[in-house]
């Protein structure tokens, strides 16, 4: 696992490999179960959670419906407060803008606040190509970066690592990035945190450029908000001379009053805290306080296209809390890397195919990376009906249909590789719509049931490698009813 999500295999293959990694499964099981139980307790403390959740969904829906208006309001407010706003239609444009802005400062090193948007666009790699080194300063992102790894969780990017693995990474890698790990570093959490603190402090004090994302942007005042636990984010947001924030356009909320809803929903859903330790807000620039130059790069990268889809657009409500990951039984077994994007778990399975399109093999497999158990929808603080969107995207994969790509309405063809399944579904659909034929088939199956194999060959192995096949009964219910009660109603065939 290194560097890039490009060219990753379809979900089932990557997930299968993860299920065989017993250490990974133990790490994930322990971590997700711990946090899911804590979240349930934190949420249960509020008797108006359902109303907060409904408000969280409603405010986002209203904002998204008038996003053009709020974005222009935001741009004006940020500009009035001394910031500069840049618009990026896609990842390449965003990376070009940020690279240019860093170059204009003359610096070759930047410190970064944990940010999903910059991972989505591959900013670190783009900066590296331009000779600019980006240092991740979130503890977990640091572990991931030092380990030449990829994040596997939205909130806890190194969830797949345990303490002893982290100690080994620190000992091995810290020296080549800056201050080396202390001699004799153990795997005690306090020692690991101290090693990271010493290593990062150097970066904070020398960096001239900070790069961040944001959890929210308040349109009425042009204020950006970062919610975090460690305080490392605040260091990056306040110490450098230049701050560049790359933020997805859907992060907008109209007013501070709207923000209040999310500052209740987010901490309880993500870290199971009533309130997160650090909430940093900044509005443009302020003389003598914090960065002297502030750039806001507004990122589209598939969001406007997603907004055009009446079912799929609800995914844009997401506040990246990761509650859905922590309750997902598939994520727990597959791990985050199998999702092939910075957005793993159920939310990733609906965001990635919408942001990137469903044409790629990995992207086409993501809507199927779910048993549709609904646990994600149940915990989502902004009520995204993830199972509904998953099924909607499955339809896009196998049936194709109208979509918007780069602002242009187009009609997708059905994905390749589903011909056999499509034929089977058609055959099943026909049989179920012709009960007489189905009944004849079932009678034949019943007569030959002693001859049925216990294990299936070919694709059927996907079932029978781990599970017995059901025995076909001697008589279907339909035949039993007819034999004992006579017929009722007409059986009919297709209309």
């Amino acid at each position, binding site marked *: 696992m290194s560097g890039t999500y490009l060219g990753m295999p379809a*979900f*089932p293959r990557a*997930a*299968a490999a993860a*299920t*065989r990694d017993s250490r990974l499964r133990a790490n994930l099981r322990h971590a997700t179960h711990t946090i899911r139980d804590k979240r349930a307790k934190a949420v249960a403390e509020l008797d108006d959670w359902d109303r907060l959740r409904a408000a969280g969904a409603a405010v986002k829906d209203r904002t998204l419906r008038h996003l053009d208006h709020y974005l222009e309001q935001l741009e004006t407010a940020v500009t009035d407060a001394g910031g500069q706003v840049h618009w990026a239609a896609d990842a390449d444009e965003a990376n070009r803008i940020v690279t240019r802005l860093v170059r204009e400062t003359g610096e070759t090193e930047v410190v970064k606040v944990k940010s999903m948007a910059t991972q989505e666009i591959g900013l670190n790699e783009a900066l590296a190509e331009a000779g600019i080194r980006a240092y991740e300063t979130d503890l977990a992102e640091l572990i991931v970066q030092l380990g030449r790894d990829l994040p596997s969780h939205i909130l806890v990017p190194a969830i797949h690592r345990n303490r002893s693995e982290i100690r080994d990474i620190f000992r091995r890698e810290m020296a080549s990035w800056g201050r080396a790990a202390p001699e004799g570093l153990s795997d005690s959490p306090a020692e690991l945190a101290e090693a990271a603190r010493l290593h990062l402090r150097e970066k904070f004090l020398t960096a001239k450029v900070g790069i961040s994302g944001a959890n929210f942007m308040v349109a009425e005042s042009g204020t950006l908000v970062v919610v975090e636990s460690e305080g490392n984010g605040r260091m990056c947001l306040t110490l450098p001379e230049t701050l560049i924030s790359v933020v997805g356009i859907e992060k907008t909320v109209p007013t501070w009053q709207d923000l209040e809803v999310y500052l209740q929903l987010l901490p309880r859903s993500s870290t199971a805290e009533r309130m997160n330790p650090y909430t940093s807000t900044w509005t443009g620039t302020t003389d003598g306080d914090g960065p002297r130059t502030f750039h806001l790069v507004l990122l589209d990268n598939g969001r406007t296209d997603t907004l055009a889809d009446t079912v799929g657009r609800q995914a844009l409500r997401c506040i990246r809390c990761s509650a859905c990951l922590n309750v997902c*039984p*598939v994520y727990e*077994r*597959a791990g985050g890397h199998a999702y092939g994007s910075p957005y793993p778990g159920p939310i990733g399975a609906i965001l990635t195919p919408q942001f990137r399109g469903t044409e790629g093999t990995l992207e086409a497999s993501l809507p*199927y*990376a779910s*048993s*549709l*158990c*609904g*646990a994600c*929808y*149940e915990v989502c603080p902004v009520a995204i009906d993830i199972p*509904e969107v998953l*099924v909607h995207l*499955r*339809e*896009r*994969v*196998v*049936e194709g249909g109208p979509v918007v790509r780069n602002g242009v309405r187009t009609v997708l063809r059905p994905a390749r590789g589903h011909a056999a*399944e499509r034929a089977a*579904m*058609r055959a*099943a*659909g026909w049989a*179920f*719509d012709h*009960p007489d034929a*189905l009944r004849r088939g*079932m009678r034949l*199956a019943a007569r030959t049931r002693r001859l049925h194999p216990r294990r299936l060959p070919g694709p059927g192995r*996907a*079932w029978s490698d*781990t*599970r*017995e096949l*059901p025995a*076909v*009964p001697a008589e*279907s*219910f*339909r035949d*039993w*009813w*007819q034999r004992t*009660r006579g*017929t*009722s*109603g007409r*059986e*009919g065939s*297709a*209309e």
Partner: protein
Amino acid sequence: MRVALFVTCINDTLHPRTGQAVVTLLERLGVEVDFPAEQSCCGQPQFNTGYRHATEPLVRRFDRAFRDYDYVVTPSGSCAAMVRDNYPRIGAKAAAEGRGRRLVDAAALAVPKTYELTEFLVDVLKVTDVGAYYPHTVTYHPTCHGLRMLGLGDRPRRLLAEVRGLELRELPGAEECCGFGGTFAVKNPAVSAAMGADKVRQVIGTGAEVVCTVDNSCLLHIGGTLARQGAPVRPVHIAEILASTEGSPR
């Protein structure tokens, strides 16, 4: 009260005993139940795999089969949830595609009268003691669509609690998916099997003789995994437990 049994395709073809148990149970409770032969599959396998258009004839068929009944009772949480949650979506999408309101109307008729068995017993018949006798240790796995889409809550457990002779064993992690998920079981077999193995470990750990659910589809997966491991736990649909009596034990 005209009550129709929607047996579901999986029970019709693979688990006729479950359908028979529903008939026995409802008749014992004084409900005259009919089986309209025009019925077929609810369309869930097609719909949940992405073949929405292939589902539409089955929605129309459901409408024709059950139009004349006051209640449609089905021994399947996920098929009931398919009707209740997804038929309106299928109707709305068809209308949006300019193909009229026939499916919208079909869904509007089907949704309010379709009940999963335990809902029908508790909410419509207002019974929790159905006069059953089942002298076994049982653990109950709440299936996802019953639990989270229908919101069955404690209805199945209240029914089981009144069954004479039955000892209910708590299933740890009960609300976690068993890993079946329809075509998920074959599209992501490794993850499905890993989920199934964890579920089965919990089931075996209860020491119960029987694992029961409101869905035979999930039991196909749980039972198939148990059987492959040679575990002695039997998968039994809740209808068969509720139909069992001293005079006619199951």
